[in-house]
């Protein structure tokens, strides 16, 4: 099978307007992912499915990942040559920058016809608000139908073009997106016989909370 780099090159040639970048994977399993922009994701997906070389007709896994806002401390080193001719001095400069949070959907693509894979496709949203949208790949691979519903439910990404986008696992009245990293669990703690620190913390919050109906 072609390497991700080759695929990236072909995609760049085929869709000049699309931004396709490689996301390296440092793990020993090492399989770089193709990061495509949301606007062209469906076209690229159709291409990957239909391309006779690749024939990625099977989307095994589709999942969301939450990357919250992160403070990145970058250390830049600049070497200054000593005008006096001494050994060069190294100046370390620490810059803090806030990497904006985003949500990401990862698709693992295989080919049943050619029995190869995987090709990993990533699509990212611009931010982490509740109104983030991505194109649905369900028209390309039916197997995304429930998995994208699950992502919509647990991560709060709206998929445009999904035939039936509803919550999959939680009930319809539910408002949160539990798989996001900043999700706060409901205060359903009342009693637990092994009082670990975090349990006590929860208990404190529970009993301090204004009288909720039904709690003793």
């Amino acid at each position: 099978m072609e390497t991700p780099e080759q695929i990236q090159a072909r995609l760049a040639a085929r869709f000049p307007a699309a931004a396709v970048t490689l996301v390296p994977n440092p793990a020993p399993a090492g399989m770089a992912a193709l990061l495509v922009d949301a606007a062209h994701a469906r076209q690229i997906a159709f291409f990957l499915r239909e391309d006779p070389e690749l024939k990625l007709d099977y989307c095994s896994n589709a999942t969301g990942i939450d990357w919250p806002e992160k403070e990145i401390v970058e250390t830049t080193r600049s070497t200054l040559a000593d005008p006096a001719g001494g050994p060069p001095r190294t100046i370390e400069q620490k810059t803090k920058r806030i990497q904006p949070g985003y949500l990401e959907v990862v698709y693992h693509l295989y080919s049943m016809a050619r029995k190869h894979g995987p090709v990993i496709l990533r699509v990212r949203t611009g931010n982490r608000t509740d109104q983030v949208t991505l194109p649905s790949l369900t028209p390309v691979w039916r197997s995304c139908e429930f998995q994208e519903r699950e992502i919509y439910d647990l991560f709060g990404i709206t998929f445009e073009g999904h035939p039936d986008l509803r919550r999959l696992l939680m009930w319809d009245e539910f408002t949160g997106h539990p798989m996001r990293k900043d999700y706060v669990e409901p205060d359903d703690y009342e009693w637990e016989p092994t009082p670990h620190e975090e349990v006590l913390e929860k208990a404190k919050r529970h009993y301090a909370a204004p009288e909720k109906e039904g709690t003793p």
Partner: protein
Amino acid sequence: MLGTGLLKGLAVTAKNFVGSFHDPKRYTTVEYPEQPTKLPENYRNFPFLVFDGEQPIDGLRCVACKICEAECPPQCIYIIPDRDEKGRPTKKPKVFDLDVSVCMSCQICVEVCPFDAIKMDQHFEIATADRFNGLLLHREDLAKSDAYYHSIHPTEAAQVDEILAEAKRKAEAKAKPAAPAAPAAVKPPEPPAPAV
């Protein structure tokens, strides 16, 4: 011919019906309360604490290091180390609670324990109507003798004994050249090889 499949099926059920009266392969019921359940040696249900000697609480191998508490996936172990009058740790648990209403019998506490102090019990008849007292096992409930451990997991217990004896020999050999006044700073022995 139509119906042969049905007749064959009837023959099989008839064979099983008749067989259930004379063929032990076709009568597999173990009548539970009367006929004892044969539990394999490896069977595990809930953890217990091993004690050496006669005194259940004083002889506990547990040193209240809280490793199992930290590693327990569902967080069902709760330990408070004991301290003597001067506030020094006595390396014994003051409280060792196990919430069997949460425990999932995964045996990770046994695997991570460096002192072979916590082992898996085989007793499963613990159904109770007492929600708040019956399902929380305290130190006193959990402490069981080494002999009991030997009786339920003989092979594993023998291996554990060897490892403990080895560790003790090493510790003694190490302690001799050192100052005898040094407290029994026994380095925890390596975690035992996965038990058989």
